[in-house]
């Protein structure tokens, strides 16, 4: 390893020992060299100097961050203002804003819904469908992905299905799903499930294939049985990729759910949005859209939070 890389490692070690920028500034000098004292690397002094420099970099990074958030808020505010003016002056040049509700009207409509039980029911029904369909997709997707990634036989048997069905968008399944499934509810759940399934399967397969062979060999030489190699090596190695698949899958399952709800059903936030259009209740269209966006973001964020403890080690990867 080159000297520079060595120093970088020392920095990483230093960073991990201390937490918080302030603590890093004060104690980085002490514990940095302490950690590497067993290594005759000659990086003792340069390590401590560098950790000071790094603390400075971190405070700079946080000020960058504040700046980015500020600019983001300003930019968003500007967009809403433009929307406001476009509706105020009935902008109509190629794109027509005459029937678009203004931000204030939408805000008012949203507030008026807050006391409306029906509104919550729409949201809850959608969330219930997502929860059920998504959990099913995760269970099946990860299992199939692990099997296909690790077993040649499973791969040969399952891959043709994936190749044939994957390119068909979940939305294209709607007519057939309505014909196949006994209830509207089950056909919507099926479409939502299908949307989430393929990204999860494909990312799991990819993750399994990326497992470093040397780690499998190491586990075998330490006495691990086949199943233990799977549990202790293959699954954790695939986890970052699986996590990516779970996020993508969540996004697509919302997309599919909405499509399903617009076309059939009496409840759900997609139905709410489409119904608002049919009833010429235009502010509610935008309310529905914003709720959909918010729920999508929230659920993807939740997936990230749930996966974080299992991926903590990734923070220390070079």
């Amino acid at each position, binding site marked *: *390893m*080159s*000297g520079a*890389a*060595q120093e970088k*490692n*020392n920095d*990483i*070690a230093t960073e*991990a020992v201390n937490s918080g920028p302030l603590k890093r500034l004060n104690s980085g000098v002490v514990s940095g060299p*302490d*950690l*590497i004292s*067993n*290594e*005759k*690397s*000659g990086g003792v002094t340069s390590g401590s100097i560098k950790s000071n420099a790094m603390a400075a970099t971190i405070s700079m990074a946080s000020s960058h961050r504040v700046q980015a958030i500020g600019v983001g808020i300003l930019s968003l505010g500007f967009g809403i203002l433009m929307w406001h003016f476009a509706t105020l002056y009935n902008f109509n040049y190629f794109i027509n804003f005459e029937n678009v509700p203004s931000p204030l009207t939408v805000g008012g409509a949203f507030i008026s819904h807050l006391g409306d039980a029906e509104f919550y029911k729409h949201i809850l029904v959608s969330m219930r469908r997502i929860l059920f369909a998504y959990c099913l997709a995760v269970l099946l997707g990860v299992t199939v992905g692990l099997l296909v990634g690790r077993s040649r036989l499973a791969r040969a048997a399952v891959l043709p299905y994936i190749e044939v069905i994957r390119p068909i968008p979940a939305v294209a399944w709607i007519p057939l799903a309505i014909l196949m499934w006994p209830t509207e509810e089950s056909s919507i759940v099926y479409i939502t499930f299908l949307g989430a399934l393929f990204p999860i399967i494909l990312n799991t397969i990819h993750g399994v294939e990326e497992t*470093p062979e*040397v*780690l499998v*060999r*190491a*586990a*075998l*030489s*330490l*006495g*691990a*049985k086949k199943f*233990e190699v799977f549990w*202790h*090596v293959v699954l*954790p*190695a695939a*986890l970052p990729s699986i996590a990516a698949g779970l996020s993508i899958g969540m996004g697509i399952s919302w997309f599919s759910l909405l499509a399903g709800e617009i076309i059939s059903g009496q409840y759900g936030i997609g139905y709410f949005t489409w119904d608002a259009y049919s009833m010429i209740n235009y502010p509610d269209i935008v309310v529905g859209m914003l709720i959909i966006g918010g729920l999508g973001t929230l659920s993807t964020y939740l997936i990230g939070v749930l996966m974080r403890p299992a991926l*903590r*080690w990734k*923070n*220390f*990867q*070079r």
Partner: protein
Amino acid sequence: MVAGVVSMQEKSLLKVRAAQEGQGRIEIDGVSIVFGSGATATTAVQETSVSISPGEFVCILGPSGCGKSTLLNSVAGYVTPSSGRVLVDDELVTEPGPDRGMVFQQYSLFPWKTVHQNIAFGPRRAGYTKTECGAIANTFLSMIGLSKIADSYPGELSGGMQQRVGIARALANYPRVLLMDEPFGALDAQTRLMMQESLLSIWSEFGITVLFVTHDVDEAIFLADRILIMSASPGSVIADLKVGLERPRLPEMATAPEAVELKKKCLASIRAQSLKAFEEVRR
């Protein structure tokens, strides 16, 4: 030095468990290893027989691609010989197992497990309880002088530290032999020297048989009791040199007349091989 504070009790545990007299004989008996079949078949190792005594430190030295790692892998059990057989203490090697500790060139610690969990992994598979595994891991951590970083993840460690943990992890299974595949190849020169000294002191503490693959002549001379020089295409052992340098080995010994003489021999032997391979390519 075996660094760190090893208490008397721990020390006796190490001795009792590890250095079982007369264990760790490796018998490589007429082993050939052929990859592929038909027209595309390549012979990686050609009819090689080597016998290694318990407690011996043997280096396999050779240019890259000469099949030295493949030969090591046949002892580890990752590669099955096309003919011949490998015996460790009269037991036929058929698959990888914890009785043969393996240290790799690439960092092979499980990045999602802490240092402590990495070392405890083998004992856990062997059926020790969690508490026992914890104690074993602590013993080996203090042996390599890294008790402080027990709860760190491998990604936080320097290359040298990772390899020390790798050695401790292999030893925590109390193997009969330690197989090392260019373990210090990726380290910088200073760290490598420090690792070599540290390995020698661990070896003398344990009295374990070590089979060590390297392409570095100095490293082989510094570490080994015996150097096996391998030739390329097809790989076979062409020289078996005894290293007469006294122990404990010191870095200064590299310039001793005997070491220099040995180095000349090794280099000449390797050079002849490389020339032969070069000629063959030209033909």
